[in-house]
């Protein structure tokens, strides 16, 4: 398939996954804040940090952090490239360039998702309408995923969509872990322990992992087990290792991807060998850093191998030799 189209498919999937993940994150945070006593509630700031958008936010709003500003920034801000509205618009623009290559219903669903996100924005920013609005965005993103899985040929193009989705998902999981654990309370303050559990539960819930955690781990919510589940589970579709497993299999099936595959295997190994029980909060932060640098490497390797590589390498003479 065309290298340009492969790249656009990959990016469309990344944008859609990002929009869905941010929508979950906002809903779970809102829920969490209702459960925590005012004094210890982390507020809305961490969401901006998770998106790596502190600088962009400060440029717009300075130090003023309140619910209305942060939510407008994360959901509706067209100037902020990571806002839900912007990422969905980008996903649609990408999809428009390969409408011909995906099933018609998938395009209609993406198009509808964009119209919904834009048209219902006011209700989405209101306190009462927000939950339903974000839930609908999540549901519609899932519908796109479902149509692609159920109606599109599982061909090369589908593989690039999967690559984009899994890499973005792994990235978001590590971001959420990183920021959330930094704001979590220390283990020593025993009277606040129940609130700590609530926060770990919210981490799981932002990744829709609470139920699956209970099923797989068979224990109540502990820091160690949550980390093990979100980083190392081979069953939970949002765990980092599971995403990497799927990435690796896709690249292997595509063929020609020795370089990205090497990076993926390296990251898989570091996850498997990680001993969560000895991991300090600082150690976790450093480990997440290593993972994120790794994801950037995976992206660069995919870009070079599949999306740009052929173009750079295909000088006219090589083309003739083919």
């Amino acid at each position, binding site marked *: *398939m*065309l*290298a*340009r*189209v*492969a790249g656009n498919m990959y990016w469309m999937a990344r944008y859609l996954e990002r929009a869905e993940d941010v929508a979950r994150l906002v809903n779970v945070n809102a829920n969490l804040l209702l459960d925590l006593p005012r004094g210890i509630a982390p507020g809305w700031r961490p969401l901006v940090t998770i998106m790596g958008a502190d600088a962009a936010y400060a440029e717009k709003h300075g130090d003023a952090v309140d619910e209305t500003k942060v939510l407008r920034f994360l959901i509706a801000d067209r100037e902020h490239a990571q806002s839900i509205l912007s990422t969905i618009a980008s996903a649609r*623009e990408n999809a*428009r*360039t*390969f*409408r*011909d*290559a995906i099933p*018609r219903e998938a*395009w*209609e669903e993406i*198009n*509808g998702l964009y*119209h919904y996100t834009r048209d219902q924005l006011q209700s989405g920013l209101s306190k009462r309408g927000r939950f339903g609005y974000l839930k609908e965005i999540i549901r519609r993103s899932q519908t796109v995923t479902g149509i692609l899985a159920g109606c599109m040929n599982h061909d*090369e193009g589908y593989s*690039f969509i999967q690559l984009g989705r899994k890499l973005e998902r792994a990235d978001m999981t590590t971001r959420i872990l990183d920021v959330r654990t930094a704001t979590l309370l220390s283990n020593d303050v025993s009277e606040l322990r129940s609130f700590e559990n609530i926060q770990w539960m919210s981490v799981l819930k932002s990744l829709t992992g609470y139920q699956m955690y209970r099923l797989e781990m068979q224990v109540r919510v502990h820091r160690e087990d949550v980390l093990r589940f979100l980083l190392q589970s081979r069953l939970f579709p949002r765990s980092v290792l599971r995403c990497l497993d799927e990435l690796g299999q896709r690249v292997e099936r*595509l063929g*020609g991807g020795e370089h990205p595959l090497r990076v993926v295997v390296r990251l898989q190994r570091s996850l498997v060998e990680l001993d969560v029980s000895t991991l300090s909060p600082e150690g976790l932060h450093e480990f997440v850093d290593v993972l994120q640098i790794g994801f950037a490497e995976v992206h660069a390797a995919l870009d070079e191998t*599949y*999306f740009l590589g*052929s*173009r750079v*390498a*295909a000088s*006219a*003479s*090589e*083309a*003739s030799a*083919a």
Partner: protein
Amino acid sequence: MTIDWKGYPTEGLFDEMVTSSGRIRPGAGKLASTLARFSDDELATRKAALELSIKEMGITFTVYTQEEGSIDRSWPLDLIPRIIRKREWDAIERGLIQRVRALNMFIDDLYHAQRCISDGVFPSALLENSANFRPQCVGVKPPLGVWAHICGSDLVRDEHGTVYVLEDNLRVPSGVSYLMENRLVMKRVLPELFEDYTIRPVDDYPSQLFDTLAALSPRPAAHPEVVILTPGIYNSAYFEHSYLAQQMGCELVQGDDLVVGDDDCVYMHTTRGPARVDVIYRRIDDLFLDPEVFHPDSALGVPGLMRAWKRGNVALANAPGAGVADDKAVYTFVPDLIRYYLGEKAILPNVPSYVCERKEDREYVLDNLDKLVVKPANESGGYGMLMGPKASKKELAEFAALVRKNPRNYIAQPMLTLSTVPTLIGSNVEPRHVDLRPFILSSDRHAVTMGGLTRVAMRKGSLVVNSSQGGGSKDTWVVDEEGS
């Protein structure tokens, strides 16, 4: 209030559904009675469903405005279809194929022996001043000797009911995707009528187009690599480019996806390296195709593409230079060309035209400017025209000067009163003027779309049907029944 056909005004018009005495024409009876049964609420519901379908399906066209740049607008479709009876359509179809066969022979002749000029059928002066004749194409032999593989001809019906050809679009005619999408929407919105009528389907066009293109492949492969070359998502017809690629299952490429190798073959950049391309359905104009030969700063095209085409390593549809016959001055000669090349009488008449290049025609045109429509020879989309009867004194004087200065560039025609079709305006029907654009395919075979894209001028009395200028569209039904 429901639709009242008795009060429908047809005075001084040829309406395609209602006769001047107020009777519903044969073939349209069930449509008229179904619509008349709808309450206002029902009509409004259907109309809303139609608009929602178009929005959901993402059927758009692109318009450019100074303030907002390019924006997508929902495609305008009227709820009431236009009906053409099969027997009439068959004759039109024969006329269109006849016309395109002659035009292709004419183009091939112009780039080779130019017999039509030496035999005195076509004046050499018109060729010398042609904006779309490409000297780079002289002597080239495209596959099967066909130059215009996809032709969109505009048909109009006058106040007496006669169908004329208004122009032939041989460069990159667009609109065929809307023809197919209109049908899809109508099936969702008025399904009951599809049970009552035997409406000829329109959706085999993409496979016909693919076969037409595949027949041009330079390699005798079982699966020739056919691609569509688009200028990109900001082009006003991008919707159509991507639609056709989807329907044909072929790659939609941009100029920078393609490269011409040292062997003068065309390759596309894929995730697995370069892959040979056999046939390019190009949706960009001649002058942007190849910066080595035409506009040197064009980023839309592919350097070396003309070289590859001339060597027969890739087929281009339409062939570069085919636009030479897409010229209002050439148009006036088409009946002569049909007689000359095919020895036949033209089945479809031309609108009587005056060629300003000819002295006696020019004098008539200048004397009667306020009664005529004057058209530039090489424009499309309805731009640069003078509608004499509706023009101011100042406009008339300006146009007279233009015609005197460059007579080759203008033809004139009497102002036709285009036929009308009932169109939903609010919750009632009113007559609105329409034209029709069928598409004709040519390579080792000929095929014509079943009906065509009906464009409708939505403003009362207006004759401007272009969607960029406020025109709408209608689904066009070629129906089998007589007298139903």
